[in-house]
């Protein structure tokens, strides 16, 4: 545990920006979220120096978890070098002084927006998701009280209606990201806007997954080794995206790819969205 006193007296801000009481409040919410997997725990979200919607939920969760020995990795769209990832990593480097890394294997805490790293996470790691909308029912039910009852009674027919309608109108389930899951056979939850490609990585993951929604003031969690089932029908099973191309930088065939537009004439290339994975693969290739 960090205290204000442990940090330089000269500094205006506490270690990892938030004051200790706030961090304690967030940790309590996290503990509750871990105890009730998939349940959205309300918490007293604070204003942060980054705007709501840009990852303040993830930011607060990470701030409440960080200790001096942690090693933080921050990605956005899978990449360490995107502006938002750089900005958040710099923020934590400034306000906590913890070590940062781009290597997935070296990180103890990974804060992410829209991706899960390709490299399997371990028991020693926590992945913190930035989540704009924690309520998977919000697309059909705008009233919070109604949505809460649906969760309480676990009557998720309305969510399956979406799947039914997609199949009858379009021939398949037309959700490609933020694909809802049932956690531990009980709560319907949003995995945050990761591509559904990443959903299977949540199932019985060795790492603890925490989802922070700052603007909506909710935290939910998927504890290690928890069952995570993506919604589907018996005769229309859940499937993930497949790419016809492989990464043009490292040749990976198993990773999620970014499309790079080379010109307006339609020339494009594909590269790994997980830049650290791509770099490690390329490193291995050149070493061998």
């Amino acid at each position, binding site marked *: 545990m960090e205290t204000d006193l442990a940090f330089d007296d000269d500094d205006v801000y506490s270690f990892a920006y938030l004051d200790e009481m706030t961090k304690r409040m967030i940790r309590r919410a996290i503990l509750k979220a871990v105890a009730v997997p998939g349940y959205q725990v309300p918490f007293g979200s604070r204003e942060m120096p980054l705007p709501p919607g840009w990852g303040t939920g993830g930011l607060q969760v990470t701030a409440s978890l960080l200790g001096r020995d942690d090693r933080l990795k921050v990605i956005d769209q899978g990449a360490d070098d995107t502006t938002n990832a750089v900005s958040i990593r710099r923020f934590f480097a400034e306000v906590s002084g913890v070590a940062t890394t781009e290597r997935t294997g070296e990180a103890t805490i990974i804060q992410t927006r829209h991706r899960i790293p390709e490299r399997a996470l371990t028991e020693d790691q926590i992945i913190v998701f930035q989540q704009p909308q924690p309520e998977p029912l919000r697309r059909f039910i705008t009233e919070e009280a109604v949505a809460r009852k649906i969760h309480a009674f676990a*009557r998720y027919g309305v969510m399956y209606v979406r799947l039914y309608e997609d199949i009858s109108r379009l021939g398949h389930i037309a959700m490609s990201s933020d694909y809802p899951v049932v956690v531990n056979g009980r709560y319907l939850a949003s995995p945050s806007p990761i591509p559904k490609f990443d959903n299977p990585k949540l199932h019985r993951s060795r790492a603890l997954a925490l989802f922070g929604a700052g603007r909506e003031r909710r935290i939910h969690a998927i504890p290690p080794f928890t069952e995570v089932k993506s919604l589907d029908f018996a005769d229309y099973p859940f499937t993930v995206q497949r790419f016809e191309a492989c990464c043009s930088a490292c040749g990976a065939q198993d990773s999620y790819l970014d499309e790079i537009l080379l010109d307006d004439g339609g020339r494009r290339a594909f590269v790994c969205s997980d830049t650290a994975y791509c770099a490690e693969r390329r490193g291995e290739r050149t070493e061998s």
Partner: protein
Amino acid sequence: MKPRAREILRVERLSKTFGRVPACSTVSFSLRQGEVLGIVGESGSGKSTLLRCLAGRIQPDEGKVLVASDDHVVDIWAMDEASREQFLPTTASLIHQNPRDGLRLDISAGGNIAEPLMAAGGRHYGSLRATALEWLEKVDIEGWRIDDLPEIFSGGMQQRLQIARGLATHPRLVLMDEPTGGLDVSVQAKLLDLLRGLVRELGIAVVVVTHDIGVARLLADRLMVMQRGRVIEEGLTDQVLDDPHHPYTQLLVSSVLQV
């Protein structure tokens, strides 16, 4: 008190007051499988409040609503909300007067029928779709309309779709609130025919609330006449309508005959 084997619903001394106005006063009755009970009365007589108490929508001040489940009898207002919400949707269906209250207009006809099935655990698209088609056929909606939005349906079709949605889960008990209200006369007649056929075919227990004596005569086996929250007369439909005892019932019956 335990209802007999085929008793589906038993109401005991049910009362509900809004402010100073008693909507239902010590109403008691029972209903068996395959039986249709009509509740008639003017608007304001308390019949819709009674129906909502039975459907789990309005909590009565006093009294019991006992409903048969597979192997026992439950008092729906003695259960906690979660258990009631688990129990009721698969046991009882409420058919609203205005189909817009009972349908989702922005999802397809098939989706409307499939939703309660999915809420009850249906997870096979093919069989959901087959059930939806089967029910559309039962309520005289052509199969090719399965993917249409009910928004573009006529009032009569919307009402038939609501009935399909309400019956597809095979509830033991169906509660209908003025099911033909708001429809024109020829459409009403057709819908009544359909309802009569379905009730007979499925052998469900039905409570139908109506201010229309004609509807009551066509659908109901037994009648309960309500005035100012009280049941003032009840008996077999023919008996009540052909030989009304209470002056108010006489008035109701004579007013319909004049038309």
